[in-house]
């Protein structure tokens, strides 16, 4: 082979460059699948299965919102004997009390920016000015 001295290193460099995304990901932590924190209280049951909640919790929250505000239906949801009051702050955050470790990791990973927290209070924020009465 002619010019073996330049072609072989050239090929090696080329292959390294083409496969850059693969081996970069293998060593980087930027794209590791997030692991949201399970409820600190140890609750295992939610209003629906984990798969369902993972894929469509936002739909459920919208349905609850419409029930509560527009239809005036604030009747608590009972799942497996446990009552859940319809509401992000009242139902979800009661168990998943750490928004920063439960909600945020996946939302950041998937680059969604839900506006829930513009109005709704995170447990952390609510604790900063606690009711004293």
């Amino acid at each position, binding site marked *: 082979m002619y010019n073996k001295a330049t072609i072989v290193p050239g090929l090696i460099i080329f292959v390294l460059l083409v496969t850059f995304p693969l081996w970069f990901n293998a060593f980087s932590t930027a794209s590791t699948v997030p692991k949201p924190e399970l409820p600190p209280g140890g609750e295992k049951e939610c209003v629906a299965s984990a798969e369902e909640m993972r894929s469509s919790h936002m739909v459920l929250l919208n349905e609850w919102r419409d029930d509560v*505000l527009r239809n*005036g239906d*604030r009747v608590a949801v009972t799942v497996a004997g446990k009552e859940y009051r319809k509401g992000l*702050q009242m139902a979800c955050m009661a168990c998943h009390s750490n928004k920063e470790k439960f909600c945020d990791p996946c939302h950041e990973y998937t680059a969604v920016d839900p506006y829930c927290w513009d109005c709704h209070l995170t447990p952390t924020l609510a604790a900063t*000015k*606690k009711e004293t009465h």
Partner: protein
Amino acid sequence: MDTQRRKFLKMAGVAALAGISAPAVVSLTPGVTRAAAGHGAAAPAAEQAAQGIRLGLLVDMRKLYGQPELMNKAINACHRVHNVPQIDNPKEEIKWLWKMPYENVFPENSSYHAAKNTRESDYLVLCNHCDEPPCVRVCPTKATFVLEKNGIVAMDYHRCIGCRFCMMGCPYGARSFNWMDPRPYIKEFNPEFASRMRGVVEKCNFCSERLALGLEPACVEAVKEVGAIVFGDLNDPHSEIRQILDREHTIQRKPSLGTKPSVFYIV
């Protein structure tokens, strides 16, 4: 030829007459009388609506005269449970329940040579949860609406775009606009209720969230010791509020506007 022309003119004349008189004939047909019956049915429909629940509130000012601290107690209770910010600048303040002098609360009622109480005392005011709410009529996004279930004029803050038409529409000034992020001005957070964000309008919700838990509105509970505020179903003849309305002379704010407020006053 001549006879044909005459025939043609006759036909044309008859056709024109039929065309002109057609609307009059149509208006006498049964289809239109049905529409007229629909108009007539409007009045019974209004009576039917009176059979549902219509929540209302009565402020017995006789029990609050000379006791501004009681009124403040009610205001603070309301503002605390609903995460209402305390902003002192009157141009930016947020208020669900507040105090105003008599001439502002009841501008249609004479205050000439008024009694000492009338002159000196403030009056508790809040959203009137009108039966004919102008704010609902003007809202372009249906962010504010009447809950069919109980007559509460409710708000869906998720839908409010902050156009402030409702504030123009409301003759009672019951709506406040969040000119800035309210959170720094909230003294204590109630973790059970949300706050609002910059750019939305807010107002009293008759404590819908507390009613769902079987509680009374926060203001009613706060002045329970004197029973100055009574809350209940205006359409239920056996409710406490109806008993008082039937017994006592009560007044409403600006009744001539036809908004049919659900808040009553004994002054």
